[in-house]
C-alpha cells in the first residue's frame, strides 16, 4: 500500500526524462529516456538539482554547455515536472517522486 512503500524506500528512483526542441541531439537523438536514478548516500529525497547533474553525467553525450550552465539549465531551456513549469514547484529545489515525468524543451527555435 502507499504508506508501506514510503517506509521501505529503495535507494533509486524510476523516472521518465524527455528532451524536445532539439535538445535530444545531445543524447544521441533519443527523446524519451526511462531512467533509474540512484540517490546519493544517505540522501532522503531527490531534487531537480541532483537530477540535473545525474543527467549531465549519464545522458548528455556531447556539448553539455548546450544543456546546462553551472548548476541549472541553460537560459532558453524550459523545464517541466509533470507538465508543470518547474518555477512553480521551486526550480532546482523541486522534489521528485517515483514515476515523475521531467521534460526539457529548448525554446530557442524558429517560427
Amino acid at each position: 500500500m502507499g504508506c508501506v512503500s514510503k517506509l521501505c524506500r529503495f535507494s533509486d528512483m524510476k523516472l521518465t526524462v524527455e528532451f524536445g526542441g532539439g535538445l535530444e541531439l545531445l543524447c544521441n537523438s533519443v527523446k524519451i529516456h526511462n531512467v533509474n536514478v540512484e540517490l546519493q548516500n544517505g540522501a532522503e529525497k531527490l531534487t531537480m538539482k541532483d537530477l540535473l547533474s545525474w543527467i549531465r553525467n549519464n545522458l548528455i553525450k556531447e556539448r553539455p554547455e548546450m544543456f546546462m550552465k553551472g548548476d541549472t539549465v541553460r537560459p532558453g531551456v524550459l523545464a517541466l515536472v509533470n507538465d508543470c513549469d518547474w518555477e512553480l514547484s521551486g526550480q532546482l529545489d523541486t522534489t521528485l517522486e517515483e514515476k515523475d515525468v521531467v521534460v526539457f524543451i529548448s525554446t530557442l527555435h524558429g517560427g
Partner: protein
Amino acid sequence: MACSASACQSNCYKTQQEEEEAVKDNNNTNSFAANISSSNNNSNSGLCLKCKANQPISSNSDGGDDARFCIDCFRGNLFGKFRFAVTSNAMIAPTDNVLVAFSGGPSSRVALQFVHEMHSKAQKNFDACRDRSLPVFGVGVAFVDESSVYSVPSNETDKVIGDVRLIVENLAPPSKELYIVPVESVYSSDSGDGRERLKKLLDAVGDATGREDLLLHLRMLALQKVASQNGYNRLLLGSCVSKIACHVISATVKGQGYSLPADVQYVDARWEIPVVLPLRDCLAKELTMLCRLDGLKTVELIRSPCTGINGLVSSFVTLLQEENPSRECTIMRTAGKLIPFHFNKIEEIDDSNVLLATRRRQKRYNLKPNESFSSESFCFICNSPLSRSDLLSLKNLESHKTSSVCCSSCQFQILPQDPSSVNELYTLLPEQLFARAKHENLDHYSALREQIQDCLLSEVEDET
C-alpha cells in the same frame, strides 16, 4: 459538474487539503494533481489567477504581471490573444484566402492550430446557417524546404515532409491544401538548375550574417510566389514576441533603424500578398508550452546554428529574458512606439462585400501612421523602405539593372565590395527580385504622377 473524485483526473472542486490526502492514498498512481501539491512545499502555490479553481501549470510572467494559469485558462489566454489580433486588425475576412507559413516549429504550429480552430468554427457556422450568407475563408499551408541549402540527406528531408503532411492532413475538416516549396523555386527554371544557382549565390556572400539574412529574404520571396500563384491574399506567419524582440535588436545593430517599424507590426502590407502576424503578443516559451500540453506535433529541422549577429542576439535576448521574464515584451513595446508606415495596416475596403463590422473595427483600431510620405522606395533585396538619406547617399548600382536600389544594410552585408563582383552576384540573384523592384517603382512612379497630375502641363497644350 459532478464527478467521482477518485476516478476523475481533472482538477475540478479539489482543494489543496483534499489533494494532500489523495497523495497518501494514491502514492503509486501518478495523479497529476497529487504530484503537483506534494512538490509544492516551498513555493507560493496559489490557484489559477483567472478561474481561481484549478492548479496552475505555468508561471507566465508576461509584462511583469506574475500570472499563473491552469491549462484551460493558459490555452484560453493564448487563443484570446490570437483572436484579438485577428479581429482588431481585420486580418481574416470571410472572403479571404489565407496561406499559413509553417516551418515545423512551435510558433507556426500554434498559428496553424489556432487558424484551424477558427476555420472549423466558421465551417460549422456556415453549415448550420440556412441561408449560407457568410462564406468560409480559405486556408492553405506552405512549408519552405531549405534542405538544399543545408545539404540534408534526402531520406531525412522526406521524413520531415512526411511528418508535415501528416500534421496538415489531421487538421481537417475543413481540409487545407499543403504546398511544399523548395527554396530554390525562387528561380523560375527547373529545380536542378535552381539548386546550383542558389548554392553559388550563397557562396558568393562572404559575411555569415549576410548569408543568413539573404536566405530569409529568399524564403519570403518563395512564400510570396506560392501565395500569389495559388490565389491567396493573406500570408500568415507565426512570428512571436521573442522573435520580434530579437529582430528589433539585430535590426538596430545592422543599421536598419529606418525600416524597423515596418517589420514589427501586426500587419505588413508592403508585399504583394500582405503579411499578418497574429501571434505577435505571445512568447516563445508559452507557445512551446502549449505544444507540449496539447500534444501539438512539431517538426524539428536540421539546421546549422546561426553563427553571426542573429545567433549572438538570440542568445543575448534569451539571457535577458531569463533574468527578467518581461524583457522580451519590453523590447517589443519600446519598438512599438516607433511610428509605423502607411502600409502597416490592411487597406480599408469600401467594398460592400466586406462586413460592416470588419470595416468598423478597422477604423476603431487603426494606428495613425505617417501619412505624409505615402509612396516609398524599397530595397530590391530585402524590401525594406528606404530613407531619404539612404536614397541620396547611395552609389547608384546601375551597371546591371536600373531601378534596383539597395539599402545600405544589404549593401554592407550582402553585396561584395568591388563592382565586378557585384555584377557577378546580380547574375546569381533570382529574376523575381528585379521584376518586383521594377513593378514597385512603376507603381511608385504612377502614384506620384497621379498626385501631381493637376500641375502637369498637357503635351498637347499650346504655348500661348
